[in-house]
């Protein structure tokens, strides 16, 4: 067994397990005090518990990496394994996502407004008392919904953010037969498995407070107003020991104004709401196909036709997700459950495999002629949210927020259920796979080594499908859409999805295993091996007419768009803290250097690191300066094309030759990408999506601020408070930002 594993083996001695549990309890007191605001990180440094770089000093009885008193001198204490309470893997069905209802905008009370609704309401004394606005969005014209009158919301989707509770209104939108026999009318308690304990209301916070995770179904040409109400406890200490009650939701990776992007500093408080306006448009809508004459630039109509829209059809997107983006608390809040998925339907990617019109790619989904739905059929189009979790001796969700290297869970969940099974038919299925972990990378294969057809990366359908028997590593926030053809199996057979990526800690993958290694049971990483069982339950009632076309969506042609400038971002350890705003700045061991100037800087959403000009295209180089670590880097706003890896276009693998929004830099690696800045403006982000790195403090702000009124150059920074958002000048503007 390796000597530096994050979790102890359940077979470890009782003395070691007891020692580890004591260490966790000791650490837990510090974590709770920190999350309640009773001690700051600086206090912990002064107390000698942390280094200036933010690393926990290996003190026996505290750090999981302190030397164990019960083992050889170099063996760390480790974390105690999560108890399973006798639960067996693959003993409960995997629930499909819970689809959020789509309603007319007229149901919203109060009606949505272009600028934030600043109607006053009493503020709870725990939040400072007095009065404050009912909407937490920053007020005024700069944070008004852009193009609100041209793209008025048609559909309202509402949700609350609240603590764990039983789901009595599960809406999978597929028949029970397509949901492994789950009866949607049966209440679903918040458990990671029916045999595991019910989660405490303070431990798990999620959309509507319930599982399965939530799914939004939207279509191009139909703007959506997503109203999120914050129903979390007003008392910051009522957090179950980690997480924070202020939230900001990022629709990853929507092409819309920054006011809807879940900016990390545009968070809102309990008892407030925030209106996110998702216009669901194609990039380039103001310059390409402006008269909306191209059938391929379109959304599906209810009648099975096409609603043609402006923009570049090559920018069509399909699989997004949404998650919390609270400044320096993203890891904790997402781990607590603040994550869902977001399927976008288009003329090309219709979600109805039997519509034949020369535009529809007819990917596996379901038949409109059977369901009566001309788009968004999910029968054979399955969202999978992968996440590693850990729980304490009582079965309650547990996290160690001081694992700045990266936090790993020791139990695999799919759609927030511990190692479930899924019944499938002998036909093709599309799987939209999201890595929703905090720090864990996955590498997926089928247990029999059979091929999978990858069709999309980060929600962007490829120019051509790619046939693989093991997917590339999948970093946090990356989405891989694949097609598996189960017709090669017989009814009564079962196979498994297998994770080949072995971690020892949260820094990076230690080793990719072969299938036989992963299935051997010898890996010290409990999340290696089988995690989802497919049971080939029956033949399809109707022939499989779905397709995987050899040509899907070619890349946008950028050859005639000049490159306005190039920038370089290096992601490093050992950041400098050059600003001290108590709200917008945060110090941690991580940081980003921009254009080889000013050194590596810790996060401050008041600092402007880059300000590309509206309507231009740039080339950005993302460098991993963090030694042998890996960083999945995410750039908000518009999808990019990968030009080179490690200096060569030939190093860009086939599955990265489409568009993307997250890149694993790989140890010692760098990526060169190109992106455009158009259609909308405001302040966006770039950060590592190992959210422990992001929160500590590998994040920067960039902005598009020269598009004319209402924008100012530079943009003032919002400072949210329950009594209202104020604005302050940027804390710093890097010399090459403009």
């Amino acid at each position: 067994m390796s000597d530096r594993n994050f979790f102890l083996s359940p077979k470890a001695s009782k003395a070691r397990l007891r020692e580890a549990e004591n260490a966790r309890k000791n650490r837990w007191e510090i974590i709770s005090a920190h999350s309640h605001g009773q001690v700051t990180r600086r206090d912990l440094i002064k107390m000698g518990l942390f280094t200036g770089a933010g690393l926990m000093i290996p003190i026996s009885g505290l750090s999981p990496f302190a030397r164990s008193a019960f083992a050889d001198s170099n063996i760390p204490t480790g974390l105690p394994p999560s108890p399973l309470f006798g639960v067996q893997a693959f003993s409960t069905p995997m629930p499909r996502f819970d689809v959020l209802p789509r309603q007319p905008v007229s149901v919203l009370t109060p009606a949505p407004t272009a600028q934030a609704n600043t109607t006053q309401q009493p503020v709870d004394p725990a939040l400072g008392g007095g009065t404050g606005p009912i909407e937490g969005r920053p007020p005024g014209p700069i944070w008004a919904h852009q193009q609100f009158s041209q793209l008025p919301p048609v559909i309202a989707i509402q949700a609350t953010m609240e603590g764990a509770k039983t789901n009595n209104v599960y809406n999978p939108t597929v028949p029970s037969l397509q949901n492994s026999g789950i009866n949607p009318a049966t209440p679903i308690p918040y458990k990671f498995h029916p045999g595991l304990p019910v989660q405490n209301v303070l431990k798990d916070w999620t959309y509507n407070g319930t599982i399965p995770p939530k799914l939004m179904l939207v279509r191009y040409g139909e703007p959506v107003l997503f109203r999120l109400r914050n129903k979390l406890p007003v008392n910051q200490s009522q957090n179950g020991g980690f997480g924070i009650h202020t939230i900001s939701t990022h629709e990853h990776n929507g092409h819309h104004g920054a006011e809807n992007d879940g900016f990390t500093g545009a968070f809102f408080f309990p008892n407030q709401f925030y209106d996110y306006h998702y216009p669901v448009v194609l990039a380039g809508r103001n310059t390409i196909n402006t008269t909306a004459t191209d059938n391929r630039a379109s959304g599906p109509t209810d009648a099975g036709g096409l609603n043609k829209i402006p923009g570049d059809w090559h920018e069509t997107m399909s699989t997004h997700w949404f998650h919390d983006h609270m400044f320096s608390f993203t890891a904790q809040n997402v781990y607590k459950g603040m994550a869902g998925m977001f399927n976008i339907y288009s003329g090309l990617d219709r979600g109805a495999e039997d519509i034949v019109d020369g535009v529809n790619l007819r990917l596996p989904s379901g038949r409109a002629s059977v369901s009566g739905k001309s788009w968004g059929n999910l029968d054979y189009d399955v969202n999978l949210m992968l996440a590693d979790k850990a729980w304490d001796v009582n079965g309650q969700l547990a996290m160690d927020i001081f694992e700045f290297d990266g936090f790993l869970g020791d139990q695999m969940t799919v759609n927030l259920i511990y190692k479930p099974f899924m019944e499938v038919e002998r036909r093709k299925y599309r799987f939209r796979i999201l890595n929703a972990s905090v720090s864990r990378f996955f590498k997926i294969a089928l247990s029999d080594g059979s091929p999978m057809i990858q069709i999309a990366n980060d929600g962007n359908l490829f120019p051509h499908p790619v046939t693989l028997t093991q997917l590339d590593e999948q970093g946090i926030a990356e989405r891989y859409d694949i097609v598996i053809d189960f017709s090669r199996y017989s009814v009564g057979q079962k196979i498994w999805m297998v994770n080949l990526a072995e971690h020892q800690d949260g820094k990076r993958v230690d080793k990719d295993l072969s299938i036989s290694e992963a299935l051997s049971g010898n890996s010290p990483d409990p999340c290696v091996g089988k995690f989802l069982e497919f049971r080939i339950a029956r033949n399809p009632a109707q022939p499989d007419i779905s397709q995987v076309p050899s040509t899907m969506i070619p890349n946008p042609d950028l050859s005639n768009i000049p490159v306005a400038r190039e920038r370089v971002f290096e992601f490093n350890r050992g950041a400098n803290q050059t600003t001290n705003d108590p709200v917008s700045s945060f110090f941690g061991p991580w940081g980003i250097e921009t254009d080889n100037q000013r050194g590596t800087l810790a996060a401050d959403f008041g600092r402007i690191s880059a300000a590309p000009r509206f309507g231009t295209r740039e080339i950005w180089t993302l460098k991993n300066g963090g030694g042998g670590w890996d960083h999945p880097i995410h750039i908000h706003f518009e999808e990019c094309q990968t030009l080179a890896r490690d200096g060569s276009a030939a190093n860009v693998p086939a599955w990265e030759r489409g568009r993307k929004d997250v890149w694993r830099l790989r140890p010692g690696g760098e990526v060169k990408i190109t992106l455009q800045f158009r259609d909308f403006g405001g302040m966006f982000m770039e950060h590592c999506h190992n959210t422990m790195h992001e929160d500590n403090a590998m994040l920067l702000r960039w902005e598009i601020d020269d598009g004319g009124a209402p924008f100012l150059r530079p943009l003032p920074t919002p400072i949210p408070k329950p009594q209202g958002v104020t604005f302050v000048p940027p804390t710093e503007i890097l010399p090459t930002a403009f």
Partner: protein
Amino acid sequence: MNTQVNIKTGRQRFSANVLTLLVGVVAVLVLGNPSVQAQTAGASTVDSSVTIATTGTVTEGTTTVNVNGSVTIKCRRVIDNTSTTLTPLVLLDFDFSQLQGTTGSGKTLVTYVTGDNHATAIRPFQASDTIVVTIPYFDSTKDALSANTFLATAALNFDSSTGKLTSGTLTYGTNVFKSSGVGTFPVN
């Protein structure tokens, strides 16, 4: 090292099957490309690659497919200069796109392709390593949905001082996981 244990375990697990199912193989080191050494603040990297001319046969049911073509393996060794605890690693990329398979001859000739297949792996750096992957292959006149698979076992050798991938062999055989990786359950 855990790596050794796992590899040994993995190989033993299917070695008996492989002996009966595998037919053959070959592997000849053809050339090694120049390496690139790079140094950033955080890491030292050394790039290398080998191209291996391979041939072999794979039996699937009653069909025997003759496999041949070159496989290029790119390697980057990374040493983390910021850490004394992180072991050096190699990033490997196997390019199987030049492999082809054939059955029959004349009018019955069928050509199989791998569909631009690549496989990637991160492994701890060591003098030698064995990596097993499956490779898809399908009739070149059909689409990838009809793909079958065969097994490739790569035995790679590295220069411990330079960090370069120096040589390797590739062995092809029947995909044993098609039996060991599939289970059954009672159908209601």
